[in-house]
């Protein structure tokens, strides 16, 4: 199994490399660190862009050297296997998909946009394009993400929405958690709408609805957890939580998070079957997540679930 880490050729970032390392350690996978550079123009321009090509390659090499220095300890001790490569492609999305295909990567790791807040995930234009096209799961590191030396994932939190697709995702996440020796947590999130003011049915009429929703989600989750306990290989432990808040941020903060958590969310059930397409709820969850998020395409979730069920 291989994990592809896509680094920005113009911008050194420890966050994406560290997330790649964490995942590689936990899943016992090899790393492919790739920087995508723009291709040279055809001979028609008679090498007028040679200087520019060299600059782009040099800059990408600086980034790759930086990544190599970050991974050096792990590679030296034999815990990690990593290769580094430059790849030319007309867009970052296309380049990453090509490399992922060539190396049979099971997972792509990318970083947040530098325009977002520290500690949160902001999806930049290239990652957005990748999310719409990737046939394999995409892990996104929050901006400024750091892990302890030698850390492994201790808990996989799976976003659960109650749909069948989301049940597949949870089973798949259970398989991943079992592989990495981590525990599994099901998390559902809801935002409490403002109180209805002129209906005279009480300002807290929605609280009862949310309580009903919470009961239903808990019952569904309990059933799912029972299914998971019958899998050939089970996570270290399982639990289900519900986060409710006045905003998505509060809803996400309503449950506790630790440094070695990752959050797994599924792509929308309305998008094309095999691709990642982040739905409106999932997009908000991604944006407000304090931990790295792995977005799994729906078709891939079924594959992962099938693999978890057969062991």
């Amino acid at each position, binding site marked *: 199994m291989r994990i592809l880490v896509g680094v920005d050729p113009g911008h050194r970032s420890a966050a994406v490399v560290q997330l790649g390392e964490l995942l590689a350690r936990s899943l016992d996978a090899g790393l492919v660190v790739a920087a995508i550079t723009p291709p040279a123009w055809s001979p028609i321009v008679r090498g007028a862009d040679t200087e520019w090509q060299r600059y782009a390659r040099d800059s990408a090499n600086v980034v790759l050297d930086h990544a190599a220095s970050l991974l050096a300890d792990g590679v030296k001790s034999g815990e990690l296997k990593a290769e580094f490569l430059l790849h030319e492609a007309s867009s970052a999305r296309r380049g990453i998909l090509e490399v992922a295909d060539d190396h049979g990567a099971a997972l792509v790791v990318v970083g947040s946009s530098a325009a977002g807040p520290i500690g949160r995930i902001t999806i930049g234009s290239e990652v957005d394009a990748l999310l719409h096209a990737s046939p394999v799961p995409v892990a996104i590191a929050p901006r400024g993400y750091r892990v302890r030396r030698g850390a492994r994932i201790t808990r996989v939190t799976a976003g659960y*929405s*109650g*749909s069948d697709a989301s049940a597949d995702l949870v089973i798949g996440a259970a398989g991943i958690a079992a592989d990495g020796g981590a525990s599994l947590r099901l998390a*559902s999130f*809801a935002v409490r*709408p*403002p*109180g*209805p*003011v*002129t*209906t*005279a*049915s*009480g*300002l*807290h*009429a*929605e*609280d*009862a*609805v*949310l*309580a*009903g*929703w919470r009961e*239903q*989600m808990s019952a*569904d989750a309990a059933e799912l957890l029972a299914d998971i306990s019958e899998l050939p290989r089970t996570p270290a432990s399982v639990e289900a939580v519900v986060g409710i808040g006045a905003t998505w941020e509060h809803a996400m903060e309503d449950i506790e998070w630790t440094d070695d958590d990752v959050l797994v969310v599924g792509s929308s059930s309305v998008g094309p079957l095999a691709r990642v397409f982040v739905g409106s*709820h999932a997009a908000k969850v991604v944006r407000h997540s304090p931990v790295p998020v792995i977005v799994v395409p729906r078709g891939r979730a079924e594959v992962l679930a099938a693999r978890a069920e057969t062991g």
Partner: protein
Amino acid sequence: MATIGQQLLRRKPTTPVGANEVHLKRSIGLFSLTMIGVGGTLGTGIFFILSQAVPIAGPAVIFSFVIGGIVAGLTALCYAEMAGAVPVAGSTYSYAYATLGEGTAMGVGACLLLEYGVSTAAVAVGWSQYVNQLLQNLFGWQLPVQLSQAPEQGGVVNIPAVIVIVLCSLLLIRGASESTTVNSIMVVIKIAVVLFFCAVAFTGWNADHFANFAPAGFAGIVGGAGIIFFSFVGLDAVSTAGDEAKNPKRNLPLAIIFALLIIISLYVLTCLAALGAQAPGKFKDQDAGLSAILQNIIGSTWPGTVVAAGAIISIFSVTLVVLYGQTRILFAMSRDGMIPKIFAKVNPRSMTPVQNTIIVMIVTSILAAVIPIDFLAEMTSIGTLVAFLVVSVGVIILRVREPDLERGFRVPLGWTIPILSIIGCILIITQLRLITIVVFLIWTFVFLVFYWFYGRRHSVLGAAQAAGETVGEPDVPYTSTVRRPDQDGR
């Protein structure tokens, strides 16, 4: 097994989860509270109720509005005391369940289905009239009578009324929410439309229209009040917002009174303008009344178009609000085991009670499609009046049973206001048409029979008590389990 008396009188414990944190954030000031009252009330009936009330009361319909307003104000004050005394969040149904017992709560539930469900149908029919008016003004074409009127008025089915209910239901299924900001915007739109109407209509003033002021005498005035009482439904929103009001002892009664003064002034002004502009005899069976009056006096369509557009926006928001209220009340009843569980199922994705909303949509659509507006308005009025009557009686019962209970707000002048409120409600009820009263009694009876065979056995509270849990402590004569004086050491 509990005796029947115990079953009918069992009361819900009044310490909902999170009650304490709820009471910490008192964020709604006097202005917002007043706006809630105005927003909840204005726009329900004034756009179409004159066509029903003027033929009964004559120009004296002005006093019908004053009487209706005073009764609504008295009951709202009682409601505010009830809401402040019982630490539950919810509608009249929840308060009745916590203070007067399960049997009464179900009776109130029957009334609330009229106050919300039937009024949804009523406002939807009003909406259909203005939609037709707007179509006529803008495109010179309107839906034929077969598709825009109830059978009794020469049509077959009222399609626009069904459309507005379906649209609102879709919004609710998707998860629409209302906030104080949205409400304030709607209040501005509604007041602007009403004032625009008055400004234009006063240009056609003719004092002769008031010559035969009260053709049916006092009975006519009170009968008119029974119909127009419908246009005061929603004032109780102030009372239920009480648990988030800043300084409720001062602000609740002030907000009710201010809201009422604003609303009565606007209604009386509208009546004066409408009656000054159009002879009383012409009101009967007039559709989209306010628009039609303006067009008749100006001889041009644009003022009617403006009023129609404003009415369509405001009635739409009102439809959404009452429909929402209906689904949430049924939701609460279903969670208590009073009605089948399907009403409490929440869709995991939209996080709204989808089946509940669809059932309400279908039933209210059928009512709106085939029943004329005057009957719908009267049924709404009687349901609301009886629900308010129960609240007023409840205030007296609570004062006798638990005189020391800490109340967020206490109605002044002892028992005077609750008793006046009861008398006012009864007075108006007796002047409604016989058919309305009979249908109301049959409906309540059917609902209570349903309770007898279903709710009484499926009651969540009853099951908990039978299982020996100490919820509710039925033997303790205190409504509030959190504010009992003996536990507070007072």
